[in-house]
């Protein structure tokens, strides 16, 4: 394996991206994302001078909320509530897996 063939990635959590880059990573539209961040529907998002630091968990959250709003015409707040519940479900499922129960 030649050295130049090896790709070095950066961790999403550690990377500052433009709104467009974050939106593309979430496969949503930038306007949609901007509105939802503004409305406080993404917890722990850091923004600085037009760039954003987005956690992997928030990326999954964006895709879930986008889908709920599109498929069911859900209000953004309702989609966020559903996303909260799904995240809690994820946490509980992880705990079950760790306990060897799932």
């Amino acid at each position: 394996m030649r050295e130049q063939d090896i790709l070095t990635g950066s961790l999403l959590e550690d990377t500052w991206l433009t709104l467009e880059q974050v939106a593309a990573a979430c496969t949503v539209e930038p306007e949609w994302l901007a509105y939802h961040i503004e409305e406080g529907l993404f917890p722990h998002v850091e923004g600085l001078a037009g760039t954003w630091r987005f956690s992997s968990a928030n990326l999954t959250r964006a895709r879930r909320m986008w889908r709920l709003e599109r498929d069911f015409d859900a209000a953004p707040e309702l989609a966020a509530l559903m996303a909260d519940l799904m995240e809690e479900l994820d946490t509980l499922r992880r705990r079950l897996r760790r306990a060897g129960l799932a």
Partner: protein
Amino acid sequence: MQFKDYYQTLGVARDAAAEDIKKAFRKLARQYHPDVSKDPDAEARMKEVNEAYAVLSDPEKRAAYDQLGKGYQPGQEFRPPPDWAGGFEFTHRGFSPAEAADFSDFFAELFGRMGGAREGFRAAGVRAQGEDQHATILLDLEDAFHGATRQISLRVPKLDDRDRVTLETRTLNVQIPRGVREGQMIRLAGQGAPGQSGAPAGDLLLEVQFKPHPRFRVDGRDLRHTLPLAPWEAALGAVVSVDLPDGPLKVRIPEGAQSGWQLRVRGKGIPAHPPGDLLLDLQVVLPPAATPEAREFYATMARELAFDPRAETRG
């Protein structure tokens, strides 16, 4: 190319009202929702349902589909008429370009794939840069401790010379940063789908997952390990060695430790920034009373210690 019966996919009649189509779509979207469905084909089914809905929920596309599809049966070989223009203006229905690009060849033939779909989205203000692509990378826990170079193979759709979509296998060697955690995304800038007319390529986002480890469970940054102890190590305290992925670690067990206790060794979990902790679940294991000497030891303990393990459970 086979004809696709979108009405059958959604389970509605050909003359169904728009409202009924929406209802049928929502019912299926709920049934095959990736976070809920236990059906292993849920993702593929949802793709079909999305595609059918993208056509039938749009009056223009539905009319064109109805007109073209007259006389065709599902699965029948389909060929659009020679004067078919394709390349519809892709009215925005909330399907992202990445999803639309995933629709079938049948859809692409009728309504345009790259051209039609992306053109519409570009008009709606979305860049013409290549799409970001998502994939999962399965790592050993050891990779998070040492960092590693891993090879991954991706199957990516590509347009051939005759504008047909083919799947191409692409192999990449990826440097895994030390301290990576489960669920994190490794972003490889410019390694996603190529852009159009010289626009930059999208990114490749790799979601990290760990293979199950025989001795450790991973909880975010923390590592959990069940540590077996001899009764005298627990009772008298001891220094025991735990083999971590980056070498052995000496841990002091306090005097009087019990099964079910958890010891936290700070900073000895996944070497992230900040590093996680090592959580040791103590489990006292009794030596078997398999020899006369061992039985005699237990008998002596019973006589000498006057120990009642159920003292606190009595009423």
